[in-house]
């Protein structure tokens, strides 16, 4: 089977420092794969390799059976769309014009006839229809991220690569964006999402891939991967996983807070005893 994304033995060395080492990753059509991992684990670098922006030092990336590097820019843009972490815009285009930029790969193709319809649908799904006439640089960070998400959806591709799409978003829109990602997968797209929020990852992923120090530490269904033992080890911080209403919820273990009535200056000198089994050392309450 060739549909989807297939990375084999991907390694990236930048200035002599290995950033990624021997990463294998398959993303099939209809699947949401979430990449998680601590800062500096190589998530964004892996995503850059998958987009074709960075040529891997070793290994290969194939999209629909062909090396990513062999595609022309426009050909590739008709198959995969990318949401970057940071949104930039050099000039004061309006939000609608930015969303329309997502249709650029289809310019002068039969698909271009659907431009209006597709742009309207994308705006609706990213909840930015009401921002259409606003100037993009005057929007808030979260609104910019959603407009960019609409641009990505307007591209109508079968592969979506989203780098921390929820970072600037409020709770409502975080859920909405990941629901959209799931819908895209249900409609046959392959979706890769980089996330920091492990509970979101567990709730929306078909598969969670944990990167640590440039290697793929674990890969599997949320229930296989999102476990206290693995996450505590990878993040070097004790982590609890509880189940709530059928979803896994990841909770970092924290020392109990000092009573709210106590003034800060009068914080107890003795560490508050902790009843938590995961906690190795109670932190002093300061």
């Amino acid at each position, binding site marked *: 089977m060739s549909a989807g994304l297939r990375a084999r033995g991907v390694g990236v060395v930048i200035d002599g420092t290995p950033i990624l080492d021997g990463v294998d990753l398959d993303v099939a059509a209809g699947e949401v794969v979430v990449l998680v991992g601590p800062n500096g684990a190589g998530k964004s670098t892996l995503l850059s390799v998958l987009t074709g922006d960075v040529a891997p030092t070793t290994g290969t990336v194939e999209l629909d059976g062909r090396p990513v590097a062999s595609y022309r*820019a426009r050909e590739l*843009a008709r198959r995969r769309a990318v949401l970057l972490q940071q949104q930039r815009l050099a000039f004061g*285009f309006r939000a*609608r014009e930015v969303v329309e930029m997502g249709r650029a790969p289809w310019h002068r193709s039969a698909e271009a006839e659907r431009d209006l319809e597709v742009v*309207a649908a994308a705006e609706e799904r990213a909840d930015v229809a009401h921002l*259409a006439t606003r*100037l993009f640089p005057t929007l808030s960070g979260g609104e910019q991220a959603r407009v960019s998400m609409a641009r990505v959806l307007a591209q109508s591709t079968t592969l979506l690569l989203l780098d921390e799409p929820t970072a600037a978003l409020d709770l409502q829109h975080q859920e*909405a964006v990941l629901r*959209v990602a799931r819908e895209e997968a249900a409609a046959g797209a392959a979706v890769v999402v980089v996330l920091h929020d492990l509970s979101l990852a567990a709730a929306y992923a078909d598969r969670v891939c944990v990167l640590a120090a440039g290697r793929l530490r674990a890969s599997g269904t949320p229930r296989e991967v999102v476990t206290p033992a693995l996450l505590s080890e990878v993040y070097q911080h004790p982590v609890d996983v509880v189940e709530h209403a059928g979803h896994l919820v990841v909770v970092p273990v924290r020392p109990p807070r000092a009573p709210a009535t106590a003034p800060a200056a009068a914080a107890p000198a003795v560490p508050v005893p902790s009843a938590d089994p995961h906690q190795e050392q109670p932190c002093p309450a300061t």
Partner: protein
Amino acid sequence: MTTTLQREVAATPRGRVRSVTGGIGLIGVLAAALVVACVLSAATGQFPIPPGEVLGSVLHRLGLDLGPLPTHPQAENNLWNVRFPRVVMTAIVGAALATAGALMQGVFGNPLAEPGVVGVSSGAAVAAATVIVFSLDFAGSWTIAVCAFAGGLVTTLVVYVMARDDGRTEVVTLVLTGVAVNAITSAGLSFLLFLANTSAREEIVFWTLGSLNGSRWAEVQVVTPLVVVGVVAALVLARQLDLLALGDRAARHVGVDVERLRMICIVLVALLTAAGVAFCGVIAFVGLVVPHLVRLVAGPGHRVLVPASALGGAVLLVLADLWARTAIANADLPIGMLTSLVGGPFFFWLLRRARRTAGGWA
């Protein structure tokens, strides 16, 4: 499961958020203004020729028996050998400089980029001055243009490589690169001035000031094809230049071959700047002021920005030249001096704005 959030905001109608008619209207107004400015400029001079006679003279040459012919015995001769070549040259050079500015701003993603400001014009000027000092003649009447193009290309590449970091160009880096490039080119020009004999020296000085005085049809014939190629190519690239505003990576993700687009644009900037500089010298700030004003009126989309800048640049320079000829009786002020006099404060204002908005260009 619905993903759209219920919101009681009237939906924005589909389609364009900026009116097409607005863009076309602006282009129409500028085209009309260009015709008026050209006629007015040709009518004004040491002895005035009524605008109606100017139009009549042109129409008769086009084979249309309309309007009055010039009554003054010298008028016809003066119009066709002195004034028209100058007006046409001015319009074409204005179009070239403004289009070069718009292109450069698009490629750098920075509204302060302009051939004069970052030193591309003076790079082209050094190369052209070399031709004069050493009386080079390897490409006939094209020699100066060819060398100006080469000089402009080298300078543009240098600025591009130096001012760009991690796929973007910071304002400070760009302006400082311009300072460095201008320092080197002015040293080059000084050296050439030192080497030159008296007549060549005079020619170089006039030409660093920028002047359209003494434009001839032969020169117009050299400059016009360069500018036509440059403006048409810029129009073809307009759509992709819009996408470049997303930044290099995101532009690539929506299908732009960024490396190729960038190289083509750099060559076009050098071509247009060389066309402007080759016979008229350094005329700065036209490429800064015009695209900026167009953006304020019609937004940043290059499909309107490029043609409107070309027309607007032509109008601005024709009017500036008219002013340069008439501001002081019997004197022809250097036009480069005038545009810098107006453009310099404008640049100050832009810098202040840039600082205030911290990169959020409107």
